[in-house]
């Protein structure tokens, strides 16, 4: 399973492209972080990769097949989007939310049956949320909601999951729970594209990283090689300090004006 974007250009209105010549490639077993500032086009990129937006030029290929040649249903069986968590209006149970992921496996006139519930349970089990299957989704924590949505993507049967800022609004413990779950799944021959605001998460969990800078992809490669002062400055427009661990970069922090300068 291989998902590839080749020189994708996309704009919402003429003359203002959000993405310009974006190229990336991800295959099973890998977890790729897409880093970029607010408004750099991360969400648009995810939707282009999923085939929900059609690039003006360039193409997205899934196993060498142009994605627009697949039907909406076929796409959904190969590719899943895990959206940012949102406040739902109705109190569906966790199980019912995951079951909705079975939609691409069902025809218009059929309803989910025993095998679909089984798939939903297996998916919930893989993210460690099976005990919450009957709990209303509205009464779960942010981290549990994100895991529920991951399970929904797994229930789709998708081997490649695109995640739009899965760790936004989560505390470090829950970030770790989500990202280590993804890491484990990636080892099981899933491919993940994760957009994020946290370079450190890319360093700790990512196999690959790519920076999205004003709609261009740059500094694509291994996180410990590509996350450095220049790439961070280009992406975020500010200076970063690099903290080196044993043999490699282990963390980056924004350089703030030292407080003791005044003293």
């Amino acid at each position: 399973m291989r998902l590839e974007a080749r020189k994708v250009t996309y704009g919402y209105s003429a003359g203002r492209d959000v993405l310009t010549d974006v190229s990336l490639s991800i295959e099973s077993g890998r977890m790729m972080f897409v880093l970029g500032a607010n408004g750099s086009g991360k969400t648009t990129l995810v939707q282009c990769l999923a085939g929900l937006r059609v690039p003006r030029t360039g193409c997205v290929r899934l196993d060498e097949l142009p994605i627009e040649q697949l039907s909406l249903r076929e796409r959904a069986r190969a590719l899943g989007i895990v959206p940012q968590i949102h406040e739902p209006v109705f109190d569906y149970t966790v199980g019912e939310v995951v079951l909705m992921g079975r939609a691409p496996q069902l025809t218009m006139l059929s309803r989910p049956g025993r095998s679909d519930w089984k798939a939903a349970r297996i998916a919930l089990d893989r993210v460690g949320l099976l005990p919450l299957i009957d709990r209303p989704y509205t009464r779960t924590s942010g981290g549990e909601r994100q895991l529920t949505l991951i399970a929904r993507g797994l229930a789709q049967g998708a081997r490649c999951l695109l995640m739009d800022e899965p760790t936004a609004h989560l505390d470090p413990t829950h970030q770790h729970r989500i990202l280590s779950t993804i890491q484990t799944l990636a080892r099981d021959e899933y491919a993940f594209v994760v957009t994020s605001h946290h370079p450190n998460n890319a360093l700790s969990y990512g196999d690959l990283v790519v920076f999205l800078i004003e709609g261009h992809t740059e500094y694509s490669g291994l996180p410990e090689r590509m996350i450095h002062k220049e790439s961070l400055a280009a992406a975020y427009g500010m200076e970063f300090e690099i903290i080196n661990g044993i043999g490699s970069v282990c963390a980056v922090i924004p350089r703030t004006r030292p407080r003791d300068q005044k003293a």
Partner: protein
Amino acid sequence: MKTKRARSFWLLASLTAALAVAALALGRYPVPLIDVFRSLLGLDGAAEVTRALVLQVRLPRVVAALCVGANLSAVGAVFQGMFRNPLVDSGILGISSGAAFGAAVSLLVVPSAAAVQGGAFAFAAVAVALVGLIGWRFGSSPLVLIIGGVLVSALFNSLLGLVKYVADPLSTLPAITYWLLGSLSGTNWSSLWPLLAVTLPGLLFLLIVRWRLNLLTLSETEAMSLGVSVRTFRWVVLLVGTVLVAVSVALSGMIGWIGLVVPHLSRAWGGPDHTRMIPSSIVLGAASLLVLDTVSRTAMTSEIPLGILTGLIGVPAFLVFFWRFLRAREEVR
């Protein structure tokens, strides 16, 4: 727990059937149950007058109450889901206001029962078509459609006001007022057939796709990422829902609250999953309107308009749900 829910559903369904038979016996001229069964099954023994009363007067009315209640509630449930708004009812999208104007115009121009029914349906369709046009022009997001519905309703309310203003205050105006309050009196087989012809296939469609209706509660990109072509599906469901409501309102006049409260009742019973909510809304809606209509024609010597009864019972019921909703929210925080 799931089998327990299924059992209580079938219990309610059989209770509704029993209520329907009881409703045939009740009225100004009570009919013994045995004669009701004799008439229904075509057996000898019931007097000709009794048979005619049961089969020609009460049966069409009971069937109408069941169908109208079922349609308003089922479509209310569907609309609340697809507009992601628990305050929406089946009259959203201007259906009720359009129908009210159409009925009023007919009462003014050609005051026959068929013309009123036809006029109400026609203008309900016009109203929804206008909302559809707004949606087609500005994007069919739930918000656009709700705002379109509010605007079109306002337009038809003004037009209705105009018709009332010019109507004869001694004959036509009371007729309009009475129609607006909603009633099933005067229902007979010949006025019932459009409702029957639409209700059965319409409800069957909603029942078949009921699980998929859950996907309409998601945002458009989210549903599309699950492989559902939301736009087509949403328009088809809107069309079916509209026809079901329009044909009901054309026969019954304005009956509020059923399409708002019954979906809440079924959600409280079985959760928001449409797999359970659609069947339970159909049965609960049918049962509620049947009971209300039976009260409306038996409680006093003259009929109590249905719209008055649904409001008197619907408002307190809604308050209870609202209170429960607030309490549930506090548990989260």
